[in-house]
């Protein structure tokens, strides 16, 4: 590449680089610096200290918050995959192609409403006097009103509703790229439909599952709104603990340290799943 071509290439990628620098690298650098500062009384003391990180490992409630976040996120991801895969499969293979567009539009309907409004709607639907409890009582399944919110279950239902649709899209996009000839070839070689699915379709759709699962993991573990509204605050997830540091005390150094720990967890998950993350396949 000659000098002119090189300059042209840099010119083309410069906007993206500047964007990343301004809105990702610089904020993270600032947050990292903050995480080594200290909040003493009402003042932020600059200087290098590992106290915030020591506090994370020494205080049980911080570690529990991280474990709660991991547990909830893993549960949400697994449940969402189990629900999304059959839906994506039906959309890709059973629904006639001219209906697929409408079906996909319906699948992304939850993304059109405000996140907060959606969570409050679930609060009303799942409360003791909500439609779910009342319907189950009418059907004779429940004798007394039961609340499905203000608990971990409420948080998980709220998350799963959203992320099932996200995963459906990534898995569907992957499934429609698998050549049908592969399934015909498997059938010719004597494979049953179940064997063809297990040995051909499922392995080839792993990239779609992994991309969706990774997005679900990232968005779920960092979410504050859903556990705050539907979880009833009876157990804390890490984003809620981060907000507690900021609320009245404006303890941005501790909040920064906790945020970086959260980012570290996400980075580790990325590294583990990186070999399966083929974004071009979805």
């Amino acid at each position, binding site marked *: 590449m000659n000098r002119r071509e090189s300059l042209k290439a840099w010119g083309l990628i410069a906007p993206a680089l500047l964007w990343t620098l301004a809105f990702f690298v610089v904020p993270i650098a600032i947050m990292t610096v903050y995480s080594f500062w200290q909040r003493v009384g009402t003042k932020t003391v600059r200087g290098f200290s590992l106290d915030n990180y020591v506090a994370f490992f020494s205080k049980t409630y911080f570690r529990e918050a991280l474990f709660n976040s991991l547990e909830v996120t893993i549960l949400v991801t697994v449940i969402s995959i189990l629900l999304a895969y059959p839906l994506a499969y039906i959309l890709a293979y059973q629904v006639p192609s001219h209906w697929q567009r409408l079906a996909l539009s319906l699948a992304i309907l939850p993304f059109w409403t405000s996140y907060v409004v959606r969570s409050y709607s679930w609060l009303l639907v799942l409360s003791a006097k909500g439609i779910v409890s009342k319907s189950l009582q009418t059907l004779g399944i429940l004798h007394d009103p039961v609340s499905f919110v203000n608990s971990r279950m409420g948080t998980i239902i709220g998350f799963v509703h959203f992320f099932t649709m996200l995963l459906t899209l990534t898995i569907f996009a992957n499934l429609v790229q698998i050549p049908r000839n592969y399934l015909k070839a498997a059938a010719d070689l004597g494979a049953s439909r179940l064997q063809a699915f297990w040995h051909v379709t499922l392995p080839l759709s792993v990239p779609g599952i992994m991309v969706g699962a990774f997005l679900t993991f990232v968005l779920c573990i960092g979410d504050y709104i859903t556990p*705050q509204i539907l979880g*009833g605050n009876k157990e*804390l997830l890490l984003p809620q603990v981060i907000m507690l540091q900021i609320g009245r005390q*404006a303890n941005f150094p501790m909040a920064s340290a906790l945020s970086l720990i959260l980012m570290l967890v996400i980075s580790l998950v990325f590294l583990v799943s990186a070999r399966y993350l083929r974004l071009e396949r979805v």
Partner: protein
Amino acid sequence: MNIRVLGFTLFISLCLGISFAQSELNALVWCDHTDQALLQPFEEKFNVKVNVKDYEGTGTALSLIEQSRPGDWDVFVVDSVDVPRVAEAGILAPLNEADFPWDDFFDEVKLDDIHFVNGQLYAVPEKFGYNTLSFNNKNASEADMLDLNTLWDAKFEGKIAVYDYYIPTIELIALSMGMKPSDITAENLPQIKERLFELKKNTALIGGVVGVQTALATGEVDIIVGGGEYVTAVLHEEDPSLDWILPKQGGVRWQQAIGVFADSEKKELATEFVKYIVSPEGQARLATSSCYWAMPANSKAALNDEQKAILRWDEQPGYLANSYPYYIPDAELDALMLEAWTEFLQY
């Protein structure tokens, strides 16, 4: 008309439009000040547009101020207990006591040690209320609610919501143990914490105002610990069974104040806004704001009898005498209280 004349006319109209443009006032407020019914009379009288930005928690407000340029804000509504620290930080402009109906304010809310710093007035009391108990009087009797200790009764298992703000709630727990909020120390905090933890078995949720309000309104819970008129009064018309009360052990009194930003370039107009807010008309509208109701600081507020009944106006002498202003602990105790609260949430 030729195109040049048309262009010139448009240009002149635009310039005139700019020169006669409505002036604006920027207010950093609690959500009760965002009610257009409150702002409209002032906007019409002074031909001004009041831009309001609402926030929760003084920490958030200070962050917003730090990120703003000097002169961006004109009016500041702030938790009364935080007036000294924001005044000392140079955020508030001095005010003239004679501009405000000081004699009409309820004596208990004047709090000279808070609104005056080194003898200079920096903010004016505008509204107050109680962190106490809100309840559904169909499922929890008023007699029960008069005693804070009934909160631990097994009959309320799973029927209690706790307001998610550690300072007033821990202070309420202290009251149930016969302590005043100012009696809380690092030494007795472990006993208060233990009592707080015991409340968890009766607790269905811990949430912000909207969360606990929704839980009470939907029948999810029967009682809100740390609630008060600010949670239930606005729902009263829809469901009169949603009530509030101050128990015999007392409650914690919150209070908000209003002042003018030291860097404001419209201090006169901002002061007029503060005067309007503490006037009888402004006080009535603020007290019954669509975001939340609470008692006006001005005893001459133009409220009607029904509104006064919902606010338990006639019981105020007793309530004021039996309630304690927010006790704000020093930074060390504050950190311990937050730690106790975080453990309670995680318990």
